[in-house]
């Protein structure tokens, strides 16, 4: 075999190994957009909290209407981010002529769903028990863990994003008063940053 044939074959072997084990259609742009949605949501939440009448700092938490509105904002941000991610990732897959639904993506979703759904239930239980102190921390930590779990099946950057989210979540446990700020940093700033990096690196 000629030398260049050897390199070509090794390159093709490596390519097949990567394509069959890593999900390459993930859209970085969806990360950027998720960051934007989170920023808008956080701004709305901030206005809601700081325009609450009275001088008691956490009085708004006793008002179920306000709590309900905050939950709605968070849920809408979540749904919009997920829908955008799905849509852009599918578009990306078509562009790269890859399948969106293949053994890799199935493994990715399975791995991701355990920490994600656990986190979801933890947050719901906290809301039901009106234990609001740790909600922002829980959001960040469980989201970071699910990203770290998913990263095995896709780009490495996702792992670092997950680690950063967990770190912010831990800080939120130490300083729960800054919950909204840390939540904003985690879901907005980090997504804008990582989404931008991934878009620059992989989507163009």
């Amino acid at each position, binding site marked *: 075999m000629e*030398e260049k044939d*050897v390199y070509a074959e090794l390159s093709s072997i490596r390519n097949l*190994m990567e*394509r069959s084990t890593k999900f390459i259609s993930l859209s970085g742009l969806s990360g950027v957009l998720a960051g934007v949605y989170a920023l808008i949501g956080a701004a709305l939440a901030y206005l809601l909290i700081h325009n609450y009448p009275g001088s008691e700092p956490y009085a708004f938490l006793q008002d179920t209407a306000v709590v309900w509105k905050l939950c709605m904002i968070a849920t809408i941000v979540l749904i919009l981010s997920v829908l955008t991610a799905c849509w852009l990732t599918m578009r990306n897959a078509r562009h790269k002529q890859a*399948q969106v639904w293949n053994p890799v993506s199935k493994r990715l979703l399975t791995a991701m769903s355990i920490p994600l759904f656990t986190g979801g239930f933890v947050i719901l239980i906290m809301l039901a028990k009106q234990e609001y102190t740790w909600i922002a921390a829980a959001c960040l930590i469980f989201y970071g863990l699910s990203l770290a779990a998913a990263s095995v099946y896709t780009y490495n950057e996702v792992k670092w994003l997950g680690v950063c989210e967990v770190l912010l979540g831990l800080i939120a446990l130490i300083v729960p008063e800054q919950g909204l700020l840390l939540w904003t940093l985690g879901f907005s700033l980090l997504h804008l940053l990582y989404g931008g990096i991934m878009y620059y690196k992989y989507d163009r």
Partner: protein
Amino acid sequence: MSVLAVNDSYDFNSLKELLQLTDGNLASHLKALEKESYISVTKSFIGRKPNTQYAATDLGKAAFMRHLQSLENLIKQHK
């Protein structure tokens, strides 16, 4: 073999999409690999649709490693 070396198992249709081969072409390659006992075949049904999973055998993985080794040796020879 590259795909099966890094995945526990892979099904026929996903292999077809990944490798961009026709049914017949892929099937004949898989038959040859099966004949050498390099891969194992597991046929089942998902609902009413047939599903065939392929996995590398220990023999197959060893043969693949030898192949990579010989490629590596060829590169070293040329240096």
